[in-house]
């Protein structure tokens, strides 16, 4: 069955779908505001006209291309193409700014490939075992892991612990706007009906990152007069030596495991995995002070983990019929439209199709590596366009992306609002990473916390008596204590 599936994926139709899907995915991923979700959603009708195997292979290729493409704009213009590449900006752009754009792209592409490969292999060989393990996670575990992740990011992302916490709390507050989970009570809407569905992550991200970047370019145009354009971006191979990549082996392994694990957990996904991996790599590094200045460690952590979530998210989706995020929900929907019954019996009833999807994903990862490698020198040429011309054009695409979220102007106005807020927050050095993570993790923590309390009939004791929540919360407390201690020690 495995062999038959892989042979199916090697058919001409599937190969064309893979190449087309990866190219469109990379373009969607690279343009800020457009995302992997959007690429899959917009191309969904196209897959209905194809046979189930080719259609599904097209969709997973779009998904993989979309997640991978985000690194291009993150590195070159400091605006993440998708929320999955937020942490790539932190070290990728400083490297590009000092003339190492090719190397930064090369490291990002290689890391994406390795992360993707790791999770695809896990998906192919031990998916059912891991899925059963993930099923043991209940609301207490999810709430505690969410809280731990948030603490990790708040305490490690910024230069100052207080500002990191402010960022995370701001993100949490913004995430509460709209309908509350479970009972749907309206909160923080200030009687604005458009706010009843809350803010969208894309609008928040574009506002904070893209608008702030454009405004920074305006400020620079006053300060410098004429900007320096990096024109000579020569690169040999991937721009990084084997020795350098081997030096990252533990970082790669750790990030791949984090990405795959987070991918399995419903609701978290690549947008969370990249920042958590980055923060963990920083925490574990002997030269943590160099993070944010343009070192490959940060790019490796972010890009390995975000691509590792792809295989991870497909594990519960294909083995149990439980979607891990929006994209996998769309993929499951597409399977149903093709008349395939999803759930634990999928491997028995449509084994060949499942292995064709696995084979397609495996090939898509290789195609992504080849296409992105070929594209490095062309991507780098973006830097030869003056930022003062490039950024306003990118902003137009961002506005399209914000409008496309719900086909309404409200989200576009939110971009302006978050842009103004982002400009001032940037001035006072409040890091955007914790804001975004608070915004993503807040609803997850709240949802599972409320579910947990419903199950335990009001008791919070299981947070201490159950092993995983107890360990996760213990780590969160230790992290905060460690960061506070480090801050005090540095001041002395």
């Amino acid at each position: 069955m495995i062999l038959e599936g892989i042979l199916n994926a090697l058919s001409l139709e599937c190969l064309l779908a893979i190449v087309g899907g990866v190219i469109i995915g990379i373009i969607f991923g690279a343009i800020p505001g457009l995302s992997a979700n959007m690429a899959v959603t917009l191309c969904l009708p196209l897959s209905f006209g194809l046979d189930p195997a080719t259609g599904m292979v097209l969709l997973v290729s779009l998904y993989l291309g979309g997640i991978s493409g985000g690194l291009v704009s993150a590195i070159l213009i400091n605006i993440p193409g998708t929320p999955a590449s937020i942490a790539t900006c932190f070290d990728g752009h400083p490297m590009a700014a000092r003339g190492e754009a090719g190397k930064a792209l090369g490291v990002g592409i290689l890391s994406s490939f390795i992360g993707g490969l790791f999770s695809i292999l896990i998906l192919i060989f031990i998916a059912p075992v891991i899925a059963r393990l993930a099923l043991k996670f209940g609301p207490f575990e999810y709430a505690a892991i969410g809280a731990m992740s948030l603490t990790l990011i708040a305490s490690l992302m910024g230069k100052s612990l207080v500002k990191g916490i402010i960022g995370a709390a701001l993100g949490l507050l913004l995430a509460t706007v709209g309908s509350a989970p479970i009972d749907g009570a309206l909160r923080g809407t200030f009687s604005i009906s458009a706010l009843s569905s809350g803010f969208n992550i894309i609008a928040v991200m574009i506002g904070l990152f893209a608008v702030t970047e454009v405004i920074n370019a305006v400020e620079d145009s006053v300060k410098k007069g004429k900007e320096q354009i990096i024109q000579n971006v020569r690169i040999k191979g991937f721009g990084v030596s084997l020795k350098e990549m081997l030096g990252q082996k533990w970082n790669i392994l750790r990030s791949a495991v984090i990405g795959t694990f987070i991918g399995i957990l419903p609701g978290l996904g690549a947008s969370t995995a990249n920042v958590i991996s980055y923060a963990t790599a920083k925490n574990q590094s002997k030269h943590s002070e160099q993070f944010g200045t343009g070192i490959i460690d940060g790019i490796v952590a972010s890009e390995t983990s975000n691509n590792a979530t792809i295989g991870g998210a497909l594990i519960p989706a294909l083995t149990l019929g439980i979607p891990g995020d929006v994209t996998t929900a769309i993929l499951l929907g597409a399977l149903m439209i093709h008349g395939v019954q999803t759930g634990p019996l999928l491997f028995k009833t449509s084994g060949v199709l499942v292995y064709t999807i696995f084979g397609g994903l495996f090939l898509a990862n290789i195609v992504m590596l080849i296409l992105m490698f070929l594209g490095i020198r062309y991507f780098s040429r973006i830097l030869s366009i003056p930022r003062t011309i490039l950024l306003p054009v990118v902003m137009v695409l961002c506005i399209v992306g914000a409008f496309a979220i719900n086909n309404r102007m409200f989200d576009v106005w939110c971009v302006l609002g978050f842009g103004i807020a982002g400009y001032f927050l940037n001035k006072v050095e409040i890091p955007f990473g914790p804001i975004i993570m608070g915004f993503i993790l807040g609803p997850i923590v709240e949802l599972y916390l409320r579910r947990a309390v419903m199950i335990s009939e009001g008791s919070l004791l299981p947070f201490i008596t159950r092993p995983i929540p107890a360990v996760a919360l213990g780590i969160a407390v230790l992290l905060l204590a460690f960061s506070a201690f480090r801050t005090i020690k540095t001041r002395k």
Partner: protein
Amino acid sequence: MELKKTKKDLVCGIILALFSALFFSQTFSIRKTSLISISSALFPQISAVILAAASLVLIIKSAKKLHDAKNETDAIRENLEESELSRKQAIYVAISFVILFVGLFVMERLGFVYGMFLYLAGSLLLMNRNRGKKWWLYLIISVVTPIVVYLLFNRAFYLRLPPGFLDIGGGLL
């Protein structure tokens, strides 16, 4: 420079503390249900309290730093040239926000192409004013980009961007 940063931190702390107070007060109007023992107001309240506490720490730290600033000349040393630059920067930043606002307003009322033409033309002229007289290039970019983007997304991906008020070319103009 350090003193200026501390002052900024102080103002930021005060604004964020006020913001958290506003948000906290808003939570009292949240509808309560007997479905769950944890009220829908609890999470925003906890978030607001965390924000208020962290803002308070920032306020105290900055106030202490300002108080401890022994060398008064630090404040005077912020030379005139620098403040002149900041003032100029602030004006240009405000103008670029106004350009974005106008662009979005026109996009909503008259259509995507018109709004984005105005935004691009305004931003490109503002940001490249030191780059020589290449106004024709900026004009071409400002006209071509919105048209290409509109046609691409409208025709290839069936994304209905705000159509032009003249309803020419399938909503293009």
